[in-house]
């Protein structure tokens, strides 16, 4: 079982340390076909307390969590490898279950749920949103190899940052202090959301450069973060990724003192440049 789990994680690009090749994460093999019934048991154990028994994000543990747990009945997923507006691939949901969403209350279940349990709970989660019964997810984006992190690439990325108006939400220096400070950004449920502080090096959907590329290209459905797949070339996107990485502050004593590593920053690990 341990070997299978390792295989599954490798297929998902979820290795803990190495910047794994990611993007369109392929479905992974479990010993048994996915079972909605078994998935319901896993969901009750691992998900229902926050996402609610019906998946509406109103579980008993949801109170006080910021951002609020996602309403899974809407079938709108932020972290996908598929184009904006599309349903996610199974592997996209599995990746979020395994890795969690650092900077939020969503924990990663890597090492805590078996491959079979992951496959099963993904199958069950899809039954919570009628949208999955009506539509199929689109093909995942192709994610090319990253452009090396160089001064030239970062400089080009700075120009892309200005042209794409990233600073309007993320702030001039990427601190998340653009419009978001004025509470003008809201998600599809009407909740106020804050643009990510990119100087912290905490990324909710993975910490490799391919992960950042994917987020920029697919956007975060249900949030104000749009897709830039049509606006930027792949090269420009990687230049922008490299610029974003250049915004990270180095961790000092004050960061250590001021940051609690549990829960909200559980997966705060820097992206290898």
């Amino acid at each position, binding site marked *: *079982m*341990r070997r299978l*789990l390792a295989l599954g994680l490798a297929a998902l690009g979820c290795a803990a340390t190495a910047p794994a090749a990611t993007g369109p994460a392929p479905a992974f093999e479990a010993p048994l076909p996915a079972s909605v019934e078994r998935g319901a048991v896993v969901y*009750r*154990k*691992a998900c*229902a*307390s*926050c996402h609610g028994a019906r998946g509406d994000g109103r*579980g*008993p*543990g949801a*109170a*006080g969590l*910021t951002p609020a747990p996602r309403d899974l009945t809407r079938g709108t997923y932020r972290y996908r490898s598929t184009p904006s507006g599309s349903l996610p691939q199974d592997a996209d949901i599995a990746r979020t279950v395994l890795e*969690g969403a650092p900077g939020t209350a969503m*924990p*990663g*279940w*890597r*090492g*805590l749920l*078996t491959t079979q349990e992951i496959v099963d709970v993904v199958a069950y989660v899809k039954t919570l949103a009628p949208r999955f019964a009506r539509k199929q997810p689109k093909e995942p984006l192709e994610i090319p190899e990253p452009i090396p992190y160089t001064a030239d690439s970062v400089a080009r990325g700075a120009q892309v940052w200005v042209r794409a108006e990233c600073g309007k939400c993320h702030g001039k220096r990427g601190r998340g202090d653009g419009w978001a400070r004025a509470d003008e950004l809201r998600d599809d449920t009407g909740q106020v959301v804050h643009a990510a502080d990119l100087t912290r090096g905490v990324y909710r959907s993975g910490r490799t450069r391919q992960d950042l590329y994917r987020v920029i290209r697919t956007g975060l459905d249900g949030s104000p973060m749009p897709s830039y797949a049509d606006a930027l070339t792949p090269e420009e996107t990687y230049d922008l990724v490299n610029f974003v990485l250049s915004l990270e502050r180095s961790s000092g004593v004050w960061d*250590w*003192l*001021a*940051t*609690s*590593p*549990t*829960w909200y920053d*559980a997966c705060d690990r820097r992206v290898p440049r």
Partner: protein
Amino acid sequence: MGRLGFAFAVVLAVVGAAASPAAAEPYLAQREGWKCSKCHVNRTGGGKRTTFGWQYAVTQLAAAPWDGGRLIDPHFNDFVSVGANFRVSSTTAFADDVHNTFESQEANLYLELQAAPRLIAYADVSVAAGSVESREAFALLTLPRGMSLKAGYLLLPFGLRIWGDDEFTRRETGYNYAAPDLGLEVGVERGPVGVFLAVSNGAGGGLDADNWKKASFLGEATWRRARVGLSGSWNRSATREVILGGLHVGLTLGRFVILAEGDVLETRFLEEDDAARSLLVYVEGDALLARGLNLKLGYGYHDPALDVSEDQRMSARATLEWFPRPFVGASVSYHLRESVPQDEVGNADLVVGELHVFL
């Protein structure tokens, strides 16, 4: 009694005082900015963990997860779930002589039955040291708008339900794990505010011998980085009246948590038309040194009679807590204690090592 016998009696008393059935960890709630009810079935803290609390223990509390193994799920189905707290300790007391003993500080089993969508039956049973005792046994009805009604054998609401019944604010107030009572509790939790009012026999957990009841109150507001709470209690019998008031606060600064409670206890002796007032203080600082590793510094102060000088007690403790894996904790602590000269027990310093397994 010979010198050896006296020393043995002192050690027994010291260890007895240090035997602190411990479950709730308010510093964790403070660190995350949550109410007690987020992680515990008992809305004022302690005892069985909720599904969320279990998940927190699985995914966040420990230094590292179990390596790919299948986790025990304490939720058998939608209706039945269990929990447990087991602690075994090794206590070394530094009185006239140095003595060491192992002890089962806590062995509690929890059972939660979901009888109806908003109704649970709950039991907390201690099986430590060869005896079986009920610590809590109640029915909890959850009502709309954050209201709840609890009836049965309860831990009453008051102050910070810190670990360690030997702390002055727990031991001297009588609001501790060793003193549940029969009664009724009404609670409201809305937004950041939680208010709980309990009415109980006030007869030490037994049947009431008079027509007076004990009233206990806890009101608390909890925000992301701070909390403030007020507590009150009133208990009267034919011969005396006990009034208790308390204020507690919590503050989170990055990796650091500060908790503090101050209580004033007034006992009125009705037949003698006399009264005694005492002051109880507890301050705790916690530092998260690394994931799963917590340093706790605690200070307790007790002035048993405000109008008498030179009778104060003090205790200070430094504890290093480590959660290497989910559901496993280990700690070592040093207790520095000072009391009046004739109090051998209160003056004995302690070194306590503890292993904690929970579910």
